[in-house]
């Protein structure tokens, strides 16, 4: 060598999650100590093996599961030899030799070869169509098979097998699962939960052959099925072996290192050779090998400590395992013991109607095991108590009802992330505690979920703790916290805000323009983004944008509400809920003439005619138009109703003319399109008979003027309004209302009601724009009125009287 290399050489065998996490942790501790060389058997950069299930199920693309990009290796000076596995270790010479013949010397060696699928010694394994479920190549083979073949067999009904089966089913294959034991996931679930799981998965379309020992894979030139020991035959064109894994230790067998089932390591992750470390699935610690991600990451931290510092004192003490099944919509959790022994007891909760099952194994007043099926909301709480050994005796009688019930009884502190101890583990996969997250948020000024993931790894693996991490972010970063950057739909990674911003900034004026310029992944979008884009364009370019009927949900395209039998309902506008004899007579005549089966008074003070066939809609509208009635937009993401009470005109308590105010508001706002439906109300006194405090914009008359309330919702999530301000005149009510609605139109995400929008941006923000900024308010109001010029045409009249526009309502042809 013509140069003195001052860095020690670290060679890593294995480019997977455990090895590379150790390298990453090491670089955090001491980026300069080693010159690092990594050998990987697969021709890929380090990717998230756990997410292969999601790739198979079509929820993610291969490109989305990369953990370390090629650039990362370069930037960190890590030399990567991917697709070139090490075939020999020479401990005497301290070198490794790769398949391609490369000889690399080391000072320290890290073994992270992971594991190999267990393959039983049965005939037929060599047939085309037989694969494992372990790496990208396997998944690619499975996806390819799903496009050419119809039937798949998965051997193994454990965690891995069920995820494989679920993925193949989502790819459109008929899937049979052959499982040796009597119930599924018998290592993680007790019999009761295993049966519930089998029932659920059977309903979803999987077929099970339990107590099934595979004897042979048969087929002529390609797998055609499997034969079981009891004589049953299961046909299938793809056979996926997912029985389990074993540590990949062939390479070290000749080295003289201590091996057992895995490579034996001490608490500092050193093998029997102090210069050789081992982490991950190939390591055996205190007699245990692991196949889940949490222990790998714990090992990585300790191993990095010892690689970075020769006097490190940390030790790995084993991991309490827990399991979650990554099958969307199936909630299963287990940790610790599965069944009570002689010295422990069981608490069970079994709701057969809701298919919820919970079991805790309790020993000496402490949780020793958890099995949850159907409702896993309290899994972190139980796991935390399992780990800490907390005495549960004070609330043992209620513990199965969950943390919120126990908290409500005053027996534990209320459930709030802010109350969790810093040592409370938020992310089980990556072993990240609350304190680590809040510290990172505060020190590094993190404001988004992605940043928190990047810096702490919390919620970066299976994602089931995402909600908790978001709450922590909100609680720690306060108003600075930004919502997680999430694509509008599967057609784009851009958020609603980003799309709207670019529509305006880049002058995009048609849906195809937007999709082309912003690189939409599906050329004509989907049922979720098209209506959103249509609204955004309509809002951005009033009078200019031509509404795209084919991007409207049927209700807005047909200007009536589709019912479950495919007929429609018709609701004419009744200004402020006021009607008269002429209108009522016209409605009665229409009901008779078209034999409308049902008439109902709505919650918004109008009359609903239900059960009108689509082809009769134009005629019904024409007759209603003739009596002066127009569309009530009861079908749209639009201004719906303005509910009023009778106010000072009749009521002895009334302080102002609430009806007149309501009619004026409705005249100004009708016909406007919004991100979601919008409801208004005006009450004539604080008794609030018009229920203005659960409306999007509610007005309550008081002696000295009008109180304006915003952001109420009487729907799924009941929310009372916030008081925006008090004004004196009717003109001010109109101006504030128009400005508020325009702000909502311009800034809320499509399908956000005002309530969640205000919760997100905060009342102070809305006050700042509407109450405090007078000029801004007037501009918003003016923009609203401008848009209304083009919006206030009665869609019923247009369709009742135009042949082209009424085409929508008639059959193309009738065959006798």
């Amino acid at each position, binding site marked *: 060598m013509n140069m003195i290399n001052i860095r020690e050489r670290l060679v890593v065998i294995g480019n997977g999650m455990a090895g590379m996490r150790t390298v990453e942790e090491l670089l955090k501790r001491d980026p300069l100590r080693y010159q690092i060389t990594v050998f990987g058997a697969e021709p890929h950069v380090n990717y998230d093996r756990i997410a292969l299930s999601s790739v198979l199920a079509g929820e993610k693309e291969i490109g989305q599961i990369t953990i370390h990009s090629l650039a990362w290796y370069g930037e960190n000076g890590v030399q990567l030899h991917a697709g070139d596995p090490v075939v020999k270790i020479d401990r005497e010479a301290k070198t490794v030799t790769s398949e391609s013949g490369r000889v690399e010397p080391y000072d320290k060696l890290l073994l992270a070869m992971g594991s190999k699928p267990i393959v039983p010694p049965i005939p037929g394994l060599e047939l085309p169509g037989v694969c494992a479920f372990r790496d990208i190549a396997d998944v690619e083979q499975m996806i390819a098979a799903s496009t050419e073949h119809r039937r798949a067999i998965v051997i193994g009904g454990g965690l891995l097998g069920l995820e494989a089966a679920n993925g193949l089913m*989502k790819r459109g294959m008929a899937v049979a699962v052959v499982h040796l034991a009597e119930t599924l996931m018998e290592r993680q679930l007790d019999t009761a939960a295993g049966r519930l799981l089998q029932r659920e998965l059977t309903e979803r379309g999987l077929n099970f052959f339990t107590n099934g020992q595979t004897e042979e894979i048969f087929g002529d030139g390609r797998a055609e099925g499997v034969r079981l020991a009891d004589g049953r035959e299961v046909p299938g064109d793809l056979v996926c072996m997912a029985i389990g894994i074993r540590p990949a230790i062939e390479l070290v067998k000749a080295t003289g290192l201590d091996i057992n089932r895995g490579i034996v390591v001490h608490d500092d992750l050193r093998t029997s050779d102090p210069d050789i470390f081992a982490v991950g699935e190939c390591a055996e610690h205190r007699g245990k090998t692991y196949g889940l991600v949490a222990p790998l990451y714990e090992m990585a931290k300790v191993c990095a400590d010892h690689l970075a510092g020769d006097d490190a004192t940390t030790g790995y003490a084993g991991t309490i395992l827990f399991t979650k099944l990554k099958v969307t919509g199936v909630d299963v959790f287990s940790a610790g013991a599965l069944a009570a022994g002689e010295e422990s007891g069981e608490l069970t909760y079994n709701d057969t109607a809701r298919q919820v099952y919970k079991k805790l194994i309790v020993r000496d007043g402490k949780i020793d095991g958890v099995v949850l099926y159907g409702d896993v909301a309290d899994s972190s709480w139980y796991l935390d108590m399992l780990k800490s050994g907390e005495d549960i005796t004070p609330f043992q009688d209620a513990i199965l009802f969950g943390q919120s019930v126990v908290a409500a009884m005053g027996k534990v502190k209320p459930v709030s992330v802010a109350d969790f101890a810093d040592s409370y583990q938020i992310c089980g996969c990556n072993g990240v505690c609350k304190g680590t997250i809040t510290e990172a948020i505060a020190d590094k000024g993190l404001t988004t979920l992605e940043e928190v993931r990047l810096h702490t790894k919390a919620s970066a693996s299976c994602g089931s703790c995402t909600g908790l991490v978001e709450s922590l972010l909100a609680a720690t970063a306060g108003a600075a916290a930004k919502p997680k950057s999430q694509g509008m739909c599967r057609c784009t990674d851009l958020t609603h805000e980003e799309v709207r911003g670019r529509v305006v900034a880049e002058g995009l004026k048609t849906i195809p323009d937007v999709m082309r310029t912003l690189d939409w992944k599906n050329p004509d979008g989907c049922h979720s983004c098209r209506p959103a884009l249509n609204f955004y364009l309509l809002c951005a370019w009033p009078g200019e944008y031509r509404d795209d009927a084919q*991007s409207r*949900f049927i209700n807005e395209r047909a200007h009536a509400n589709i019912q479950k039998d495919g007929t429609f309902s018709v609701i004419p506008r009744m200004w402020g809920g006021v009607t008269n004899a002429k209108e009522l007579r016209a409605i009665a005549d229409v009901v008779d003439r078209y034999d409308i089966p049902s008439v109902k008074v709505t919650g918004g003070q109008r009359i609903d005619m239900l059960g009108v066939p689509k082809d009769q809609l134009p005629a019904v509208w024409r007759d209603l138009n003739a009596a002066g009635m127009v569309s009530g937009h009861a079908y749209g993401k639009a201004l719906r109703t303005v509910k009023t009470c009778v106010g000072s005109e009749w009521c002895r308590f009334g302080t102002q003319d609430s009806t007149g105010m309501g009619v004026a508001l409705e005249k100004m706002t009708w016909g406007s399109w919004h991100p979601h439906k919008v409801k208004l109300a005006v009450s004539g006194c604080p008794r609030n008979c018009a229920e203005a405090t659960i409306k999007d914009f509610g007005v309550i008359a008081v002696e000295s003027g009008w109180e304006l309330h915003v952001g109420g919702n009487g729907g799924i999530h009941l929310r009372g309004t916030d008081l925006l301000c008090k004004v004196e005149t009717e003109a001010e009510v109109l101006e504030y209302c128009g400005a508020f609605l325009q702000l909502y139109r311009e800034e809320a995400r499509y399908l956000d009601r005002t309530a969640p929008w205000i919760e997100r941006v905060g009342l102070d923000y809305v006050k700042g724009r509407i109450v405090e900024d007078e000029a801004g308010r007037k501009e918003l109001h003016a923009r609203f009125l401008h848009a209304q010029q083009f919006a206030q045409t009665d869609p019923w009249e247009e369709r009742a009287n135009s042949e082209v526009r009424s*085409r929508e309502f008639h059959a*193309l042809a009738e*065959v006798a």
Partner: protein
Amino acid sequence: MMADGAMTAGWRDVGALEEVPRLGSRTVTTPAGTIAVFRTKDDEVFALEDRCPHKAGPLSQGIVHGHHVTCPLHNWLIDLKTGQAVAPDQGCAPTIPVQVLQDRILLLLPSDLP
């Protein structure tokens, strides 16, 4: 889809291509039930019985995107070519043979089969 004029025996002309909006649908009523005729952006035409396999929702009223339609009642996604629901949903809306000849839409109705 067939393009051979000699292959039109038994096929019914139900209307002009331009009468069905792009990314939209029209219906054809028959004694055996309603048929939904779809036109995609690339002017391919598909026909299905107008009943979602889930709760019989009128597929003709759904939003068309790519070669799929989303049922208006519960957002099931149906493949226009095969009538199959896209997984995880399961079910199938029967397909009706359809071809476009000189901008006319022709259907081969089950009742017209020999």
